[in-house]
């Protein structure tokens, strides 16, 4: 009996250790990545569409400073966006380009821990090397903030970073979700950098996106209201309506964007018109989910 108990205990420990190993935070190939040279001017467009500022600026602070502090209330608790300004002490100024790639491509922190997927690396992971490097170069040009990052306030067991390894095993896929459908650029902008689905797609109980209800609408991450569904069954706007909205924030009846989309429009308004048109084409080509 005692031997059975010991064997069972060892078995459980071995399984746990094996599980932790299999779901460990992964990293990019450091040699390949450190050789890429980013272009800050090109990175400005990636930053605009990536909407980094919409999460990482302080709610009552300067809109150009990535000081962190904004809170997001979810079913898993409250996330607080960190300081990602180039500050050497309280921001990410002491990161290498490899660290930045690991964050965006693998959801792995410089000290080798999983990031919570409230940070939408599951979408950003689809970005090209060039765009990630350009974004890194651009962020380095932004103003620094010495505001310390705050901890998240998550409910057990969702506060355990090791558990994110299970989430990644279930949901972290870098393949594009939709076929290209004549607008590969639109798909790249929407599914990789723009990460539209992270707000507009409903999630499972464990916080994974429900790919079979892609962009069908979801609870608003602010905690109030819902994001609208964008499939053709739900959004009756034309491609021109969508492109104009992404440019000006004005709806087809000339109301103006509010809530979460306001921050998105701040970015999409800076894109070249053909990119907005590509995003609009992607949205109009979505399958008709309810």
């Amino acid at each position: 009996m005692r031997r059975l108990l010991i064997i069972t205990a060892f078995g459980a420990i071995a399984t746990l250790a094996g599980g932790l190993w299999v779901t460990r935070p992964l990293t990019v190939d450091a040699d390949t990545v450190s050789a890429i040279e980013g272009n800050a001017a090109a990175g400005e467009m990636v930053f605009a569409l990536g909407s980094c500022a919409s999460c990482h600026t302080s709610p009552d602070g300067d809109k150009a400073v990535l000081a962190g502090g904004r809170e997001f209330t979810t079913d898993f608790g409250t996330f607080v966006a960190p300081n990602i300004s180039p500050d050497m002490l309280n921001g990410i100024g002491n990161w290498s380009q490899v660290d930045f790639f690991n964050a965006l491509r693998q959801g792995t922190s410089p000290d080798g821990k999983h990031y919570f997927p409230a940070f939408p690396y599951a979408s950003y992971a689809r970005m090209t090397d060039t765009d990630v490097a350009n974004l890194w170069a651009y962020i380095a040009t932004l103003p620094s903030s010495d505001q310390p990052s705050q901890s998240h306030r998550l409910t057990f067991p969702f506060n355990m970073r090791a558990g994110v390894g299970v989430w990644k095993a279930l949901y972290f896929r870098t393949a594009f979700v939709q076929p290209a459908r004549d607008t590969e650029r639109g798909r790249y902008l929407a599914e990789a950098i723009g990460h539209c689905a992270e707000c507009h797609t409903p999630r499972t109980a464990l916080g994974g996106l429900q790919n079979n209800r892609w962009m069908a609408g979801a609870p608003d991450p602010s905690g109030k209201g819902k994001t609208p569904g964008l499939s053709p069954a739900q959004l009756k706007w034309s491609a021109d309506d969508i492109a104009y909205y992404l440019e000006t924030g004005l709806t087809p009846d000339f109301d103006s964007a509010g809530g979460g989309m306001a921050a998105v429009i701040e970015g999409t308004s800076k894109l070249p018109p053909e990119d907005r048109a590509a995003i609009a084409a992607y949205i109009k080509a979505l399958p008709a989910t309810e």
Partner: protein
Amino acid sequence: MKFLLTLALSATIAATASTAFAGGHDGNPAVTARKAHMQIYQHNLTILGNMVRGNADYDAAAAQAAADNMVILTTLNQSTYWIPGTTNAELGDETRTLPAIFESGSTAREIGGQLAAATVALAAVASDGVEAIGPALGPVGASCTACHRPYRISRN
């Protein structure tokens, strides 16, 4: 007899009660005025926006009139309809205005100033064709959004 009396009484009450709704005076006056103000912005913005989007032919006189209206709207004295106690927190679904607009740190006044400047710039070019109006609508829309984002409950 009793039935007829009840019927007559009910009808009288219903008729009297319904007149209270007739003039639209049921809601909070500040909220009613705010919504009306916004609707006139929307009315004039629609005239200009439809020209820019190609839904309507450009008409210099109509565009100028609409733009001038926008300027005038920003110069109205609105102090009697932007007052604390008339937000969604106190009045519920009647209004989408959030309490933050009247709390300390509110930037609503500053954004109002930005809107005023944007409408002046729009009116300055309204007679110069759609190519001129299009870009001038940008800052106007941005001012609308800048206020709606923190101070208005979004739809859905």
